[in-house]
C-alpha cells in the first residue's frame, strides 16, 4: 500500500492553505492565523465583511464599541473559514491518497484525470460550504451593524428596549420560517419584537419552530433585514406609516395575539 510521501501531503495542504488565505483575505479583510490582527480600514479589500458592516452603519465612523463588535463578528466568520480550510485540507489529501493506494494495490498507476476529478469534487463540496458561510455571516454582520445603529439611535431617544421588525427579501424560494416568524398571520404585516428578544447567534431548528428571531436570520441563506420601528409608527397593509403619538405597535400586536 504505497501512498503519497509526507512531503507531498504537506505540499498539497500548503497549496490548499494558500488558496484559502486568498479567499479569506477577500471575505474577511485579513488572513486569519496566530498573531494576525483585524485592521479596521474602509480601503482594500472593498468587498469584505468589515466593509459590509460600515455600509450597514451608513458609512459613518464607528464608535470604539462598534469597532469591537465588528471585529468579533469578523473573527467569528474567520473561525468558520479556518475550520472549513482544515476540513478541506484533510478531505482532499485523504481522497487523493486513498485513490492512489487503491490503484497501487491493483498494480496500476493513478490517472491524472481521475485525480483532478477527485480534487474538484472535494473542492466543490467546500465551495457550497463557503457560500453558506459568506451568506450567513454576511447577514449576521449586516444585521449586527443595524442592531448597533438601532441601539445608538434609541439611546438618543431615551428608549431602553427598542422595537424592531424584519423585512423579508422575496424570491421564489422564500422559506416558510421567514414568513411565519417575520410576519403576523396575515403574511403582510411585519411582526414587531423588542431588540432584546432578537438572538445574536444562529437559531437551532427548535428555536426556529418556536418562532424566535435572530440577527443571523432564520436559516443559513436567510437575507431578511432587521429594521427599527420608532414609537408612534405602525403598519398599514404591510407599509410602515405614522399612526399617532403614543401608538405602540409592539403592545398592539401583543394584545391581538
Amino acid at each position, binding site marked *: 500500500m504505497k501512498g503519497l510521501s509526507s512531503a507531498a501531503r504537506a505540499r498539497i495542504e500548503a497549496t490548499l492553505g494558500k488558496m484559502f488565505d486568498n*479567499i479569506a483575505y477577500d471575505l474577511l479583510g485579513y488572513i486569519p492565523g496566530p498573531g494576525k490582527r483585524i485592521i479596521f480600514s474602509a480601503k482594500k479589500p472593498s*468587498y469584505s465583511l468589515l466593509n459590509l458592516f460600515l455600509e450597514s452603519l451608513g458609512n459613518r465612523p464607528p464608535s470604539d464599541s462598534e469597532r469591537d463588535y465588528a471585529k468579533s463578528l469578523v473573527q467569528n466568520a474567520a473561525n468558520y473559514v479556518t475550520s472549513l480550510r482544515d476540513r478541506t485540507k484533510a478531505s482532499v489529501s485523504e481522497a487523493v491518497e486513498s485513490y492512489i493506494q487503491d490503484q*497501487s494495490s491493483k498494480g496500476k498507476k493513478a490517472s491524472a484525470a481521475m485525480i483532478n476529478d477527485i*480534487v474538484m469534487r472535494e*473542492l466543490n463540496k467546500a465551495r457550497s460550504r463557503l457560500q453558506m458561510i459568506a451568506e450567513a455571516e454576511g447577514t449576521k454582520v*449586516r444585521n449586527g451593524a443595524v442592531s448597533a445603529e438601532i441601539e445608538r439611535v434609541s439611546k438618543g431617544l431615551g428608549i431602553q428596549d427598542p422595537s424592531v421588525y424584519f423585512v423579508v427579501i422575496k424570491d421564489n424560494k422564500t422559506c416558510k420560517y421567514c414568513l411565519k416568524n417575520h410576519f403576523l398571520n396575515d403574511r403582510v404585516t*411585519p411582526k414587531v419584537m423588542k431588540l432584546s428578544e432578537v438572538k445574536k447567534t444562529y437559531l437551532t431548528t427548535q428555536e426556529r419552530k418556536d418562532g424566535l428571531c435572530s440577527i443571523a436570520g432564520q436559516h443559513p441563506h436567510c437575507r431578511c*433585514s432587521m429594521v427599527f420601528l420608532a414609537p408612534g409608527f405602525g403598519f398599514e397593509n404591510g407599509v*410602515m406609516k405614522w399612526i399617532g403619538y403614543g401608538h405602540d405597535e409592539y403592545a398592539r400586536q401583543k394584545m391581538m395575539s
Partner: protein
Amino acid sequence: MGNVDYKKKYMELRSVLMNVIDQVYRAGYQQGSKDAQVDSLMQQNQQLMAQMSGMMGGMMGGEPRVEEEGGPMAPEDQAGQFMDSAADAHEQQGTSELEQGIAELESELSKKEADKEHTANLLAAINRSLGKLKEAQELKKSAAHIKKMREANKRVQTLSIGYKHNLSKTHKKAVNKQQEIVEKILKKWESESQDAATEILGIVQKEGKAE
C-alpha cells in the same frame, strides 16, 4: 355494416380535431395578449408609485398598496375562464368521438378480412389524431401551470411591498453589497480552485504516482 364509409368518418373526426386545436390556439393567443395588457398596466402602476414616492421626499409610509387581494374577478379573467371551460368541453367531446371511432374500426377490423389493410391505415391515422389531441390537452395543462406560477408571482409582489417601502436606501445598498461579496468570493473560488487542482496534480505527478 359493409357500407360504412370510413374515409368520410375519418374526415369528420379530423375536422372535429382541427376545430379543437383551433379553439385551444385562440384561447392561448387571447391569454397571451391579456397577459401583455396586465404587464403593461403593472409597469404603469410601478412608474406611478415611483413618482409618488419621489414626491413624498423620503417620508416613511403613506404610500397606497399596489395590489388588492381578494377583490372581484376582472371581466377579462371571467372571459378567460369561460374560454378555458369551452375549450375543455370541445376537447373532451373530440377525444370521446375519436375513441368511439377507433372502437368501431377495431370491431370492423376483426370482422372484415378484405378491407383489413385499408382499415388498418385508417386506424393508424385516427390514432395519430388522437395523439395530437392528447398533445393539445398537455398544452392546456401547461397553460394551467403557467397560471399558477403567475398567481405565485402576484403573492411575491404583494409581500415585496415591505422591501420596497420599509427598507431605507442604506439597507438596500447593504443587501446589494452582501450579494456582491458572495458573488465575488464564489468567482474567486472558481479560479483559485482550478489553480489548486492543477498544482495538486503536479505534486502527485512529481511524486511519480500518476500518469
